[in-house]
């Protein structure tokens, strides 16, 4: 099949990483914006969470849209990781002998930490789902009270610290990934090359700042 054939090529894998990456970016951005409702109090946030389950009504039944979104995200995550894994193996094999001395001239901390940063984000996502979606590692989880789950969850400083570290990793990942998205899909030009860098900086900052604010707001007692 042509799509399988396409995925066999490393350039094809990069394109898949770019497309799945931007899907995940869209989710992360929406997730952060939705969470800002935390600052509007319990009714708004819980109402928003409940409304997400009714998206698509009357065509879709309760919770269906949410599950469709989850399946799309799951597929994006799986493909993103699969491509990254395979490309990493190719790249490791391509440079079997290390230099005795090597200086990097152009790479950034973000570009060099994409792989491990990605692993950290993966572990975080698993923990986050168990913590605030399924509640199995939450001390006092109540399915209908998202606001309370967040506040109680973040009152533990160790948990909050882990969340914040993961958000920094996500910010770095986005900073390099969002820019790479354009490059891997061949979107480049004299003006676009400036804009795509700004786009990456802007959204990496906005998402990181927004996400960091939630645990900080709870820890400082601003939200309780």
């Amino acid at each position, binding site marked *: 099949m042509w799509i399988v054939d396409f995925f066999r*090529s*490393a350039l094809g894998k990069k394109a898949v990483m770019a497309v799945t990456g931007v899907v995940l970016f869209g989710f992360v951005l929406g997730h952060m914006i939705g969470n800002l409702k935390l600052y509007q109090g319990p009714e708004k946030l819980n109402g928003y969470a409940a409304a997400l389950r009714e998206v698509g009504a009357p065509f879709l039944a309760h919770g269906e849209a949410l599950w469709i979104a989850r399946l799309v995200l799951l597929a994006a995550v799986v493909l993103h990781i699969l491509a990254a894994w395979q490309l990493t193996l190719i790249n490791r094999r*391509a440079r079997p002998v290390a*230099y005795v001395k090597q200086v990097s001239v152009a790479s950034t901390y973000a570009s060099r930490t994409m792989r491990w940063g990605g692993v950290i984000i993966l572990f975080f996502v698993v923990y986050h789902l168990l913590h605030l979606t399924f509640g199995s590692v939450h001390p006092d989880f109540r399915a209908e009270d998202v606001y309370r789950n967040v506040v109680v969850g973040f009152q533990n400083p160790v948990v909050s610290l882990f969340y914040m570290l993961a958000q920094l990793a996500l910010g770095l990942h986005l900073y390099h990934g969002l820019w790479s998205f354009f490059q891997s899909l061949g979107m480049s*030009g004299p003006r676009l090359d400036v804009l795509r860098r700004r786009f990456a900086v802007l959204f990496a900052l906005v998402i990181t700042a927004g996400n960091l604010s939630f645990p900080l707001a709870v820890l400082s007692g601003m939200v309780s």
Partner: protein
Amino acid sequence: MNLTLYVWRQAGPGEPGAMKRYDVPDVSPDMSFLEMLDVLNERLLERGEEPIAFDHDCREGICGSCGMVINGRPHGPQRKTTACQLHMRHFRDGDSIYVEPWRAAAFPVIKDLVVDRSAFDRIIEAGGYISVNAGAAPEANVIPVPKDDAEAAFDAAACIGCGACVAACPNGAAQLFTAAKITHLGLMPQGQAERQRRVVKMVAQMEDEAFGSCTNHRECEAVCPKGIAITTIARMNRDYLKARLFGKG
């Protein structure tokens, strides 16, 4: 000036190698890096030792033969300069200098600093050409080329195929080289007929060789002695995706 060199010595393909220390006194700052190695080799020969093997030809920065990693950077510390055009005045008296061959699975070491770059030739053979009737040269102005395209094509054509891009890439990827050729030919009117086939074949060959894949570190662009930009890589990606997803196969 007096220098201490640490040079990779390897007797032959697949042999074990090691960094070897050489004290090199009385180096003139006017020498090129290769001339400095020549002087060291003369001295080694006088002592009955095996001289250091390294590739070179034009020594004026246009053939792409020379290439070694000098103090951790392909072609050394000076930007947009090949090793043969790098002069010793860019170093200081008493410096220690590390000299290593290109390191990449696709560029196996033949001896000392000499590596086998025939993988590049195979990428070119796969599609880095234009099939035209090679008769008498046509009148130059018969086919008009927009000025911007001509300049961008010329910038890409400046690639001398030295392999510094692969050497610098943490992934040992040959993206910049391949993209430079694809950009050069793909921008010219004469290159249009084979444009899609070319990018598909050259990329396939590139991936069949032991090169890695691009993660957008931009190290290649920073060390390229000809200043080839990664905009060429974007163009290659664009052409490749178009050809694979919407092309006529």
